[in-house]
């Protein structure tokens, strides 16, 4: 087994996902299958191979640090589940 129920619980915590017991058990089986399939990559010796993060060369892009128009506050907050006085509202995080 590459991944057990305890690992699934740990990863779910990292991913901020509450899983039901059924989901946890099902994911343990499925992720195990998928990760076993991925072991295929170990057939290849890649010691000398550079990793590719983008298939087309990407370089940093700069722009002048000037003032320009941005999204107004109203439509930016328009989709928030809760907003108050021009801010997003979240549960209390400081006691």
């Amino acid at each position: 087994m590459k991944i057990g129920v305890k690992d699934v619980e740990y990863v779910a915590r990292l991913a901020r996902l509450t899983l039901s017991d059924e989901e946890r058990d099902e994911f343990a089986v499925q992720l195990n299958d998928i990760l076993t399939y991925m072991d295929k990559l170990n057939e290849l010796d890649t010691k000398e191979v550079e990793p590719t993060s983008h298939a087309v060369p990407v370089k940093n892009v700069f722009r002048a640090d000037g003032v320009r128009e941005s999204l107004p506050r109203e439509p930016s907050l328009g989709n928030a589940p809760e907003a108050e006085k021009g801010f997003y509202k979240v549960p209390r995080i400081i006691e």
Partner: protein
Amino acid sequence: MEWTRLTAHEAHEKLMKKSLSSLELTQSLYHWIKNVDSKVAAYLTLTEEEAYQQAQWADERIAKGEEVPELTGIPLALKDILCTKSMRTTCGSKILEYFRPPYDATVVRRLRESGAVFLGKVNMDEFAMGSSTENSGFGITRNPWDFNRIPGGSSGGSAAAVAADECIASLGSDTGGSVRQPAACCGVVGLKPTYGRVSRFGLVAFASSLDQIGPITKDVTDCAILMNVISGHDANDSTSVDIEVPDYKRALINDVKGMKLGIPKEYFVEGMDRDVERAVWEAIKLLEQWGASIKEVSLPHTEYAVATYYIICTAEASSNLARYDGVKYGHRARGYDGLIDMYAKTRAEGFGPEVKRRIMLGTYVLSAGYYDAYYRKAQQVRTLIKEDFDRAFEGYDALLTPTSPTPAFVIGEKVKDPLQMYLSDIFTIPVNLAGIPGVSIPCGFNGGGLPIGLQIIGKHFDEEKILRVAYTYEQRTDWHLKRPQLS
């Protein structure tokens, strides 16, 4: 002739001759949608009021005798992954059920500026994760050729809407085959451009190093017309590449004489669907008869592409989807104990099973102790896959393969076996990993009357050659003229 059946270039001619108005065309499409979409279920949102305004505006410009772009007054369907200002954009997910973006995606803005009409937003696998559109949070879309079968995915709504004449053309997005595979399943044309050719600004992100927006159309000419509008550099997407965009219509040359076309032997493996193999080989032989030189070529790392892809795309997805936290937009759970619990419950309620599975997998392969074994390893194999293509293109203008190993499968067939579902993208995934362009065109039917797709792959920023091969094949065959029986 039914107006709904028109291609964009045919409709444009009629609009110019004033034998048809955009308003009439738009009305007849909505009328047809109301007839057949209860069976196909391609649309998630219809935007009639706005569409009629756009159509009227187009008609006014044409009436004034203005020189208008080819898409002026042409009704399109947009995959629901593209942000449309103030128009609901769900990405196929319950977590974005009521989301109305405050801005347009760059491709949407460009289509608006060219005078296109938006009929509505079409269905997709949630966050574009899937090959069948069964993972949508809002129900399944059916293949117009056989309602018991999937339309492909993730742009299944786009391909089904085009095949069923519920729009003139559509835009989809392709991370591992999500434009080409549904196009093949539905018997229409779908092109994934070179990475960086089309701006991703306003495309809801799935795997940022792989995602590209591409057209799904009734023929290759429409594909070129849409490419002309959506391609080009955009300051809002720093991965869009600042090189000149050719006029893709000039690539529509009905001639393949002297072109060198490679057949990757790894794409014709034991156990592949007999009808697919037969149809694709018949297409290859025709191209040879018409003067192309055909030779076998090897892409030796093909068998590692699916494993590589599902490490990279899930890693990128787990990071991209961290933004759905119930704070800035989208669903928020009720009844939680503090901020962290709010995040976790919101995401548990809002995401479907496949999205959760991929977030879990991506989080795992990026987690401490596994990063090198999985993520870095996959990035290295990605280099090998890309080098396979670089070598092949030293001697060839384009490569020919099946788009998908099978025609459209039955709804429900692969839902319980994610690995089998992943393997249905085996011929399209390597193209995204290498960042090169690929187009799927109809090349026949199986014994059960299901369409089969031929994939033509080109080198970076060489969409012109694959369009030329596609156009030549299309002009000399009539698969693209076949339509499913719907009423």
